[in-house]
């Protein structure tokens, strides 16, 4: 997808002025946080599980090549196929090749962020294969020609009246006078339409929450059941997964599952956790004839051994964005690329280049709430700071900002001059405040005074007042 992260500031302003969006975001602020907090409170070993989940992922990353090889071996053993894709382009090509071999016309899709990352839908469309998103949220945004604004709740930026209008506009085969007042009627309408699509699709594409090396299994975690219909009904099932999704064993999967749903939606378990190992077998009445796994790297292996390696632990639960004040304010689209929120502000620069995404790691207050709720204990603020370091080293941060910083640092390193610097600043602030005790316009800090007052300073700086007191108290 086209990257709009360089226009983050503009996107954010538009988002803040968008009343529909702001209304929709209020649901994120309240519901997600509350549900997670309850789920976590009800499981007394939640933090121990987090620690263990982290340990599992760390172990896996240190042995990633070997686990991937084992995973591949087991998939082949079961009659499946594995396609290694170094780049997004490779992955797209592999998917299209599989579709073309059976002259596929329609492809149903379970929710997959990897599909977004590699721009699969657009690519299939121009190659005469019709992709049909089947997750309700994904389906809605596909109708609107949008991309997900949240990694687990793709249509979280929309309100019901918008969805109602979309359905009326697109589902023209249905009676015009039907009632779509309640959310359930919208859901049932989508269900009815998509049921036909499931049954008629040639290929089903899903993502994967885990790849289990022990058994050559791909796992999806969902609530709607669309992922299961996507992978069970068509002749071919393609799994799109990135390389860091691999875990060693079934037991390891269980450990991480226990923190995944609780962190994401506040459920103890999502409704469907489905383990798929290869194509249809002998006397199995259901299942696909072919089972393919596309293993995508697309920049991830280059994160290994760097300060961004910990990001490969991410299990895409979305807790970081659910708790992020910046995400709450502007929503996911403002970030301008596939992955929004704190995890995106760390991952996007790795995958799409810091030169395109420089705003993202800067647009954080470093409040640390993302890290505090991350089931994988990923130090997100620290990694955003590492991106700021890269930007600073590469001279990518704005010139004015660098100049101010340099000037300030010159003083901060020299105590004597720093005193003078603060006295002069103090004097200037005092003049600006006059008698009112507060400043309503401050040069160089218009961003502050446009929205709020700035307190005027007290008569003296602390250091002046302290030195006065000391001389008074201790006569020579």
């Amino acid at each position, binding site marked *: 997808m086209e990257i709009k992260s360089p226009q983050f500031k503009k996107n954010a302003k538009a988002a803040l002025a968008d009343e529909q969006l702001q209304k929709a975001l209020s*649901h*994120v602020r309240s519901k997600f946080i509350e549900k997670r907090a309850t789920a976590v409170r009800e499981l007394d*070993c939640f933090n*121990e599980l987090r620690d263990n989940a982290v340990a599992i992922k760390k*172990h896996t990353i*240190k*042995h*990633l*090549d070997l*686990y*991937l*090889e*084992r995973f591949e071996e087991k998939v082949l053993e079961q009659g499946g196929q594995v396609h*290694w894709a*170094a780049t997004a382009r490779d992955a797209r090509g592999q998917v299209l090749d599989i579709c073309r071999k059976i002259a596929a016309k329609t492809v149903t899709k379970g929710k997959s962020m990897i599909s977004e990352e590699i721009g699969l839908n657009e690519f299939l469309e121009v190659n005469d294969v019709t992709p049909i998103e*089947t997750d*309700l*949220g994904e389906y*809605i945004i596909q109708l609107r020609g949008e991309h997900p604004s949240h990694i687990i*709740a*793709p*249509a979280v930026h929309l309100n*019901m009246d918008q*969805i109602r209008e979309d359905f009326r506009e697109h589902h023209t085969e249905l009676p015009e006078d039907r009632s779509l007042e309640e*959310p*359930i009627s919208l*859901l049932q309408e989508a*269900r009815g339409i998509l049921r036909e699509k499931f*049954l008629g699709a040639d290929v089903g594409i899903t993502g994967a929450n885990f790849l289990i090396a022990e058994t050559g299994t791909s796992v999806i975690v969902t*609530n*709607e*059941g*669309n992922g*299961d*219909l996507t992978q*069970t009904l068509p002749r071919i099932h393609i799994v799109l997964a990135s*390389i860091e999704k691999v875990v060693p064993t*079934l*037991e390891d999967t*269980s450990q991480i*599952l*226990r923190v995944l749903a609780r962190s994401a939606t506040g459920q103890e*378990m999502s*409704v*469907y*956790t*489905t*383990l*798929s*190992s290869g*194509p*249809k*077998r002998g006397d*199995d*009445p*259901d299942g696909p004839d072919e089972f393919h796994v596309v*293993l995508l*790297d697309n920049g991830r292996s280059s994160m*290994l*051994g760097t300060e961004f390696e910990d990001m490969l632990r991410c299990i895409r639960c979305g807790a970081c964005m659910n708790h992020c004040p910046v995400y709450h304010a502007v929503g996911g689209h403002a970030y301008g690329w596939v992955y929004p929120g704190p995890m995106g502000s760390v991952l996007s620069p790795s995958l799409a280049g810091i030169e395109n995404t420089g705003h993202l790691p800067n647009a954080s207050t470093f409040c640390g709430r993302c890290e505090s709720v991350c089931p994988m204990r990923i130090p997100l603020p620290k990694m955003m700071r590492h991106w700021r370091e890269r930007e600073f080293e590469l001279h990518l941060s704005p010139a004015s900002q660098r100049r101010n910083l340099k000037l300030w640092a010159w003083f901060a390193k020299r105590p004597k001059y720093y005193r003078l610097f603060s006295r002069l600043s103090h004097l200037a602030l005092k003049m600006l405040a006059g008698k009112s005790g507060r400043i309503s316009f401050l040069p160089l800090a218009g961003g502050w005074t446009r929205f709020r007052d700035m307190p005027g300073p007290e008569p003296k700086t602390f250091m002046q007042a302290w030195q006065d007191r000391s001389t008074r108290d201790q006569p020579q």
Partner: protein
Amino acid sequence: MSSRGEILDRIRSAVGGVATDKMRKANVERRLKRHPVGILPWTYKNNDQVITQFTVKAKKADSTVERCKSADVSKAIVRFLKKHNLPAACRIGADRKLKNLLKGQEAVLEITHGPNDGSQLTGVSCALGAAAETGTLFLVSGKDNPTTLNFLSENHIVVIHKKDILKHQEDLWVRLRRKYGAGKLPRTVNLITGPSRSADIEQTLILGAHGPQRLHIIVVMN
């Protein structure tokens, strides 16, 4: 170089390279062979507590649960169908245990066999087991209990024997290994916790998305 070689080489050089391969391989083999159990939540004093936990958690996930004797399973099914104004008919696979439980009830309950092609309102399956910790059912693919019954049925009834309700997911992995062999699984294992749902519209939870609208669990107590 192939993508495969390229990716694996890059990983290898970043995580320690060929020099440490022998040790790393041993680590991997050990973990796969021993599949260590991590942290197991909840403790149970007795089997009754396990069943209770299962029931509480399954209900919390919006399943309905009832306990009955093996002789009454078909009655329970008929009662469920009646309660929801559904035709007295259901689809089942080739599961022998289930067939036995429903034997002789053809007069009150029309039973057809095979996968669901989308036209069957109610599917009945037999679960391989369940994890009490979250009220989660474990179903495996195959002719006995076709996967489509789990997803294309609007109403899904799952029969499980109380001895198959275990404490944790990990207990089920042990059972699966015993049944299918180490490192092997049936094509699909479905962990199901409640009826299908979506909260994609304004974060409002609605039951019955693409999968079943109702999930009824019958626990056979004898």
